[in-house]
């Protein structure tokens, strides 16, 4: 069953002067439990695609259905609420809140969701342990390595029990060992807990791990390959 369906999605910048098509009539669907990489050269529309899927940007045309909800029709407040309950994000630059500890960063979304303290503490600890940071719960981001920060970001993305996780170039700022470690964790979460991951990436290691690779060029899908 598809959890995401994209129909005729387009995004045009500078529509009134010289139109630039970041996405041009894209049709795509994702199933629960997929581990998908979106690849393509710079400017091909990968980040725009992820922004659209995450409801961070509004399309110029088309529809994005997530679990039966057309998110392109939601108002700003509804969209923020929808993101909080359904979508997890992992950013290239980690983007943890610097004044919060690892634990506080992870439980931040659960607080927004109104999860009670006992449940929050339990889940936060589980998540940080699952990404190998059980010992760092009270450490602030500036005392963590890049790899550790990105693992906290993964734990944060999982905290709200989202339907899928969008990861924009998650290994771009990591050394190879940290990147490998992060990929193993995400692959394990995908395999064992059936969590859907969608990456945009240039990293061949991520592409190698992905079970489906969607290639974009000039805002269009030029290939969509599923392994096995």
């Amino acid at each position, binding site marked *: 069953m598809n959890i995401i369906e994209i129909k005729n999605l387009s995004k045009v910048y500078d529509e009134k002067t010289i139109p630039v098509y970041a996405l041009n009539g894209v049709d795509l669907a994702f199933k629960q439990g997929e581990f998908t990489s979106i690849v393509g050269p710079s400017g091909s529309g990968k980040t725009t695609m992820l*922004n659209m899927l*995450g409801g*961070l*940007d509004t399309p110029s045309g088309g529809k994005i259905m997530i679990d039966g909800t057309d998110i392109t029709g939601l108002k*700003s*407040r509804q969209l*923020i*609420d929808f*993101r*909080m*309950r359904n979508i997890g*994000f992992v*950013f290239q*630059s980690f*983007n943890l*809140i*610097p*004044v*919060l500890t690892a634990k*506080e960063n992870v*439980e*931040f*979304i659960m*607080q*927004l*969701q109104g999860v009670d303290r006992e449940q929050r503490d339990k889940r936060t600890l589980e998540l940080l342990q699952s990404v190998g940071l059980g010992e760092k719960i009270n450490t602030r981001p500036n005392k963590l390595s890049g790899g550790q920060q990105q693992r906290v970001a993964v734990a*944060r993305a999982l905290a*709200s029990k989202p339907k899928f996780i969008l990861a924009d170039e998650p290994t771009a700022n990591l050394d190879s060992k940290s990147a490998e470690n992060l990929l193993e964790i995400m692959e394990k979460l995908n395999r064992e807990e059936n969590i859907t991951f969608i990456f945009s990436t240039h990293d061949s290691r991520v592409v190698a791990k992905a079970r489906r690779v969607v290639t974009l060029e000039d805002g269009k899908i030029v290939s969509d390959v599923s392994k096995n």
Partner: protein
Amino acid sequence: MGDLRLAWRNIWRNKRRTLLTAASIFLAIFLALIVRSLQIGWFDNLAEIVVQSYTGHIQIHKKGYWDDRDINNSMAFNDSLAAVVKSNANVDKTVPRLEYFALSSFEKQTKGVMLAGTDPLKEDALTKLSAKVVKGHYLSTGENSILVSQGLASYLGLTAGDTLVLLGQGYHGISAAGKYPVCGIVHFPSPVLDNQMVYMNLATAQEFFSADSRITSLSLTLKNPDEIGNTAAALKAEVDGGKFEVMRWDEMMVEITQQLKVKTAGGKIIIAILYMIVGFGVFGTVIMMTNERTREFGVIVSVGMQKSKLAMILVLEMILIGLTGLITGVAFAMPIMLYFKLNPIHIWGSMAQAFISYGIQPLMPLALKANFILSNVATVLVIVSLTCIYPVRRIFKLKVADALHK
């Protein structure tokens, strides 16, 4: 992580900037409070001197008397008026007076004088007249003698024990004439008063002016002078407005009030400039803080925090910085204001001489009142709140995808 804790941690992520902003607010509120405290202390001190030297806080006259101070504009001092005054809980002392001009004569000298008929005990309680006696003794109740001011006595060449002849026009044009023994000489630092005052018992003056049971003014002092506005309004409502006028001291002493207002306005302009400078300083901090954190705002909104909540946290941050400056500013200013309220500043030089020549002690106490402290605190909070408009607008206009790539 509560909103308050998050805001508190956020403001300390750049300690130097937060401390500088809080310090500018500290300095602004500190200086503003000291300047206002000096101004209000000066104003209150002068007001108290004016009140205690003659007028009282409030006076009741026959309607139109203050504009035309003629004995024919005197009023009957009856029980109903006394009852109205006594019924007001804030009225402390009352001094009935009958005042009018007369011609004085001693041997070959004559001079116009201001004759004040009063109750010696009540007058002394208000103006401490007995302390001004330099020769002879103070007027006793029922005594048929008079007190003469030193400058006038000197001009006429008389002293205590001599007899002064007074001539004048009484109530409804009746001739007024009499001779009165001088029981004492009083000295007023103000030359205007020192050269023209004659005091006698109220009953003696009423007899001299043929104005039986009449007075020209009823001076009142108040238990709480800060309530003068409400008390005057209450008295106006109680007395017959067609017959009487109720006037505050500042309505009677218009020249002094206007001079004080001019001085106060100057001080307020200085404080306004100070606040403007601080306001721009705080605004600069807000702009820097907002621009530095645009990506972070994008992340927070992308993971699910509503923009309104984020804006509220930002406002909270600014209020916390504002309160840090405010609380320390007020905490530093309060002991200074209290100390100089209890131990007034001694004025020196030509200004001190000017004070003394008007019978005023050359002291300047500082005021310590909740109303001006709170109004300055509120002003700073309003300034801080206004500076929040910019980041709040930025947050509501935030495009998350763009912010994430800042």
